[in-house]
């Protein structure tokens, strides 16, 4: 892609909730923010986070000891979850001067080893990208109505 004119483009934000695991098809369906590196020269740092369902979780009935599971079942409060993700993506992008924020989160069952969450941020510099990514995840766990229920092995 050829570099754009010399005015820095505005920020883009995209959020989507998908049924089941986040996979390449889900990313493709969600749009071009997942389409790879921004090659315009305005972006110097891209950070992609994947959250993957691990094989064990702390089990409340066993004193918080880790127990094997087969899947997590994600419940979302619709459409509030989507709205909160949208707000959060725009807000974090503005606060950190990011070029783009894109997020996909699963709804429903996601098996061990499958991806439940993808977050991609692009920024001029590394520090902004890391700060924006960290703040997004912290605030998502506070403000986005998504719950997870372990399905134990």
């Amino acid at each position, binding site marked *: 892609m050829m570099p754009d004119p010399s005015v820095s483009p505005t920020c883009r934000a995209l959020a989507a909730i998908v049924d089941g695991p986040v996979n390449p098809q889900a990313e493709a369906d969600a749009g071009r923010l997942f389409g790879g590196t921004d090659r315009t020269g305005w972006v110097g740092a891209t950070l992609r986070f994947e959250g993957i369902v691990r094989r064990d979780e702390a089990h409340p009935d066993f004193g918080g000891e880790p127990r094997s599971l087969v899947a997590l079942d*994600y419940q979302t409060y619709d459409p*509030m979850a989507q709205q909160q993700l949208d707000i959060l993506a725009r807000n974090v992008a503005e606060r950190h001067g990011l070029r783009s924020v894109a997020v996909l989160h699963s709804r429903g069952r996601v098996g061990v080893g499958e991806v439940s969450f993808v977050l991609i941020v692009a920024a001029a510099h590394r520090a902004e990208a890391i700060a924006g990514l960290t703040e997004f995840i912290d605030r998502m*766990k506070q403000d986005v109505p998504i719950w997870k229920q372990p399905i134990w092995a």
Partner: protein
Amino acid sequence: MLIFGAAAINAKAGRVTVTVGARATVRDVLTALREQHPGLRFALPNPDTGRLAVNQTFARGDHDVKAGDEVALITLLGGG
């Protein structure tokens, strides 16, 4: 009131009934929830940390809750 996650599993329901006076704020609803559903107190460590969404938007403690509003308990989240 809509409930989710561990709260819903504990209550064995996705919805509980909370009775409040004709004029009630979000804070009144949280207080009534603690009194009328002691089994859900684990999800509300103290009355000020419990957060309610009214009509799918986070509402402050002094927000008035009206008949017909969709009220949801948004706590113990687990995204990511």
